[in-house]
């Protein structure tokens, strides 16, 4: 469903993403882990059509983002880490605009807006201007907007930033539920426990390279030693990446399929 095919992206001379190949099939939650500046955001920007790869292809549901961005975006629900909302629109107006953009007719839009309002408990503030919302409220509204058209692909940058524990639990359950119903989900996070809890597969990226990807168990085995936590694994892999020019060769890659 989500496919990076040998994707490289450069910023001037700097290589932000180097030869990334990755497939996230339907029904799977994939978590991107990596230190700051590792290339996660660049990969996500390519996935939502903001950036084009310098080489390679990015596809959603088989639609190439470079050549068929509209169809690809039609399948996409995107939750950025810093959400954009029209300050002078109410939450309800924002949701109706997005529903309309995804081709939902008026009746379906009303129905879906009500569904997501109930899901994310938006009733209290949905008819106030978005400029009055706290970060957490904005984040809940953006999640609701991303779910309106039942997207086949969900891309989430830092899913739990700004959410209170109750909303965080809601989002975790929702992601799991969406994946169970067939959506392909890619999320980028710094929170290792979140990745550990929700993700089916985890990929560690550093300096533009995907160092390893697989289930937590596979990743542990790939380093031929048992780590008690994902944190230890992450620190070891990224430390190795910093020390060696080609650390990835030392790691065996696993796939969960």
């Amino acid at each position, binding site marked *: *469903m989500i496919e990076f095919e040998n994707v490289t992206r450069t910023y001037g001379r700097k290589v932000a993403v180097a030869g990334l*190949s990755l497939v996230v099939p339907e029904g799977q939650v994939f978590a991107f882990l990596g230190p700051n500046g590792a290339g996660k955001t660049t990969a996500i920007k390519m996935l939502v*059509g903001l950036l084009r790869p310098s080489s390679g292809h990015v596809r959603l549901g088989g639609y190439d983002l470079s050549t068929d961005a509209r169809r690809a*975006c039609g399948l996409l629900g995107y939750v950025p880490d810093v959400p954009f909302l029209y300050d*002078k629109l109410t939450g309800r107006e924002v949701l109706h*605009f997005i529903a309309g*953009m995804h081709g939902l007719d008026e009746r379906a839009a009303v129905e879906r807006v009500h569904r997501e309002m109930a899901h994310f408990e938006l009733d209290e503030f949905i008819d106030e201007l978005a400029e009055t919302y706290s970060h957490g409220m904005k984040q809940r509204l953006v999640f609701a907007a991303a779910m309106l058209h039942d997207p086949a692909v969900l891309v989430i940058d830092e899913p739990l930033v700004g959410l209170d524990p109750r909303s965080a639990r809601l989002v975790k359950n929702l992601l799991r539920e969406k994946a169970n119903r067939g959506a392909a989900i890619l999320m980028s996070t710094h929170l290792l426990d979140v990745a550990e809890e929700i993700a089916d597969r985890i990929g560690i990226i550093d300096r533009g390279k995907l160092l390893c990807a697989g289930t937590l168990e596979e990743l542990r085995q790939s380093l031929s030693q048992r780590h008690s936590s994902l944190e230890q694994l992450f620190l070891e892999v990224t430390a190795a990446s910093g020390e060696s020019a080609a650390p990835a060769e030392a790691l065996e890659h696993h796939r969960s399929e």
Partner: protein
Amino acid sequence: MTTQPARKLPPPVVPPPRLLGAPEEARLFWRLRWRLASNIFRQAFQQARFRMSLVTLLTGLLWVGLFGLFAQGFHFLKTTIPESVTHDETARAVFSIFFVSLTVMLVLSTGIILYGGLFRSAEVRFLFSLPVRVERIFLHKFQEAVLFSSWGFLLLGTPMLVAYGVVEEGSWYYFAAIIPFTLSFVYIPGAIGAILVLLIVRWLPGDRRKLLWLAGGLLALTAAAVSWSIRRNIDNDLLTPAWFQEMLARLRFSETRLLPSWWLSSGLLEAVRAGWDTAEGRRALSESVMFLALTISNALFLHQLAIWAAAGLYRGGYSALHAERPSRKRLKPARFDSLVLRAAFFLTPAMRLLIVKDLRLFRRDPVQWLQFLIFFGLLALYFLNIRRLSYDVNYVSWVTMISFLNLAVVGLILSTFTTRFIFPMISLEGRRFWILGLLPVKRETILWGKFLFAAVGSVVPSTLLILLSDFMLRVSPLVVAVHVLACCVLCSGLSGIAVGLGAKMPNLRDDSPSRIAAGFGGTLNLVISTGYIAAVVLLTALPCHFYLAAAGGLGAPLDATTDRLWNWLLAGAAGSIVLGVVATLLPLRIGFKAFRDLEF
């Protein structure tokens, strides 16, 4: 590298999503705009009725004032140049020059605004993740940019056009035609600016700054060449009929038939003569309609061309622009900063550090000093060009009047600077108040630091400009002294007003200085500043003017009255100083109180 080879998926693997047709998409975007506009107005009328009323009133007053000014000007032209051919030529020259300049400004301003809208806005990042046509995103931001770049023209240009119609007793057709003419006209330079931006960003993303400098340099050179070609080797005496004809001939470059500005000016000049009763009226009407059709068809053509350009270039350009690595330059402490620190030895260390901090922020934000530089550079260019006038017009009173008008212009530009950059400083501090708010520094110190930064920073360039103007006009040492005094009084007062009002009416929500300045507080700051400038200039200019006239500037010396006028001059200077002290201290005092009580 252990990444797996990608598995080839047979495209597409899921049924295609429902995509909107272009008309449905357009409807949704127009509905979005309507909702945004109606929410903004509703909110403004519910929460800020006084502000809205004041802004509307001031805008109306400005419009009426400009209308009166233009009506007087056109009436003067009509009565001074009764001969119809020369009169028509003069009106055409005025319109052509105005609209040519406007064309250039609209190309640049739409281009610059659109660059920000298309390539740097958060809204576009959001819209790109929706299944929206790229052409629709472009159109959405393009129409917004045309509106933002041309509202000033609509505000300043319409009183001129209406005044011309009133003075020339144009028919209703003329007044009705103003709207489609101006709307279609602003679209043409706007679309040209948009296409240029798309081309530059797509094909020369890394060189866009160099290109901007180059374009700016070329524009300045062209302006200088045009100015020189108009003024060089004038054979006739100033303000004689022959001189007038020669000047009109030299302005003909603005009447090139291929320029949209010429279509607009010709269409409007014909429209004012249009009628149904005479053959001449009907001819003028058909000519005017032809020019209107020409302008509209070109606007539509360029509109379509811009959409095609966007379809082919926008997404690629966006990606290319963001492929640049942000510059990560290491900055060393500037020698200038340590010089300032040493020069301000008499201030407290905290205040010195605050001033240097603001200086650094100012220096590292080219948007700030570049606008200041352009305004003051243009003024310097103008001052350097007024020498000829001082030779030709041998009346001391005229020269003095022009020198004081120059002082007023410097003051007005300074007031736009204090409104645009000094007034928002306090509001912007609100966002980083966790730094200043936690320091063991009195809140007054922060405001004093900003006041000193503004006052000292503005007094140096302003005084230099005034001295340049005085040098070129060869005014007497007395006038120079009065000017320098008035300049210092203006800088101090304008800085006090901006800092005081900025603290009294902060806008802690916005992070854009231009939006903060465009709000109610900024508008009020500009209005108060303008009144203050008028008061200071009148207090110093009038007595000085009459004293010099009495002391022999206009011919016969009037000994009996000179003493009285000298006293009046001294009183005016003292009055301006008192006014300056009040304008500095009163707003600061109000600002101190408000800033002490401010909760972030």
